[in-house]
């Protein structure tokens, strides 16, 4: 579900993290997370579970990039 390159990435893909917030929670707070990024804050400390999730979920990461672009400076 994420971009993959090489045997190490296969093993990383299989690694799970109990802090993972999941898609539902991430989608619920994605706009707040994006504003935190745009404000130059440290979203990882405020939303560790979402940060973990975005590293592991391709579709949510795709949406994050899209929202970051839409809400970012033009």
């Amino acid at each position, binding site marked *: *579900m994420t971009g*993959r*390159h*090489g*045997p*190490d*990435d*296969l*093993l*990383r*893909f*299989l*690694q*799970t993290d*109990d*802090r*993972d*917030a*999941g*898609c*539902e*929670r991430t*989608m*619920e*707070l*994605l*706009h*707040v997370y*994006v*504003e935190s990024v745009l404000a130059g804050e440290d979203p990882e400390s*405020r*939303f*560790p*579970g*979402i940060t973990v*999730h975005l590293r592991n*979920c*391709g*579709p*949510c990461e*795709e*949406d994050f*990039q*899209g*929202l970051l*672009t*839409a*809400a970012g400076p033009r």
Partner: protein
Amino acid sequence: MPGLSSTRELAPATVTPDASSTRWIDGLRPPRSPQVETRLYELLLRAARSEVGRRAGRLRLAGPELDDIAHQAAHDAMLAILRKLDTFRGESRFTTWAYKFVIFEVSGKVARHFWFRADEPLEAEHWGRLADRFGLSPEEAAESADLLAAVRRAVEEELTERQREVFVALVIDGVPADALAQRLDTNRNALYKTMFDARRKIRRFLVAHGHVSQGTGG
């Protein structure tokens, strides 16, 4: 377990929206201002076009089809925003909250398009593709043959039928998660949880059989 973690983030407190967000909300509450509605639709359409364009490289879509998706996404996002206006809690700018709806609409419509374009049935699962999916060169695949075989064995022996079905579709066949969720009449979150459990089981199998050290990243 994703989404059930004890470190789950607290929801941001409801805050007073900034002045610009307040103007948006006031203009969209009944009786709605046609000018504000039009302005919001223009913003949503611009964001939808940008997002469809950003994803276009991975889609087999032509210009008019892309624009059609953008228009549909903007329209459906507008309806969703008006329906959920009272759930805006002011923890972000109104426009960032609104853009989220259009991004999700684009995601969903692109996923549906995957099946429209999948005019031939997907091939039966083909394990030779596992190495390709992770970008292994032929040499790396040969060196990792034991590992790849162990992953296959774990999938076949350790996963439930549902977990196996989802793993094969997403990882081996490369079906986009949102497209698979629509086909299986479920949602992205449920699929992710299924895959989360599957990944954990496979890794445990690899540890138990000496392919991975416990507690290491690999």
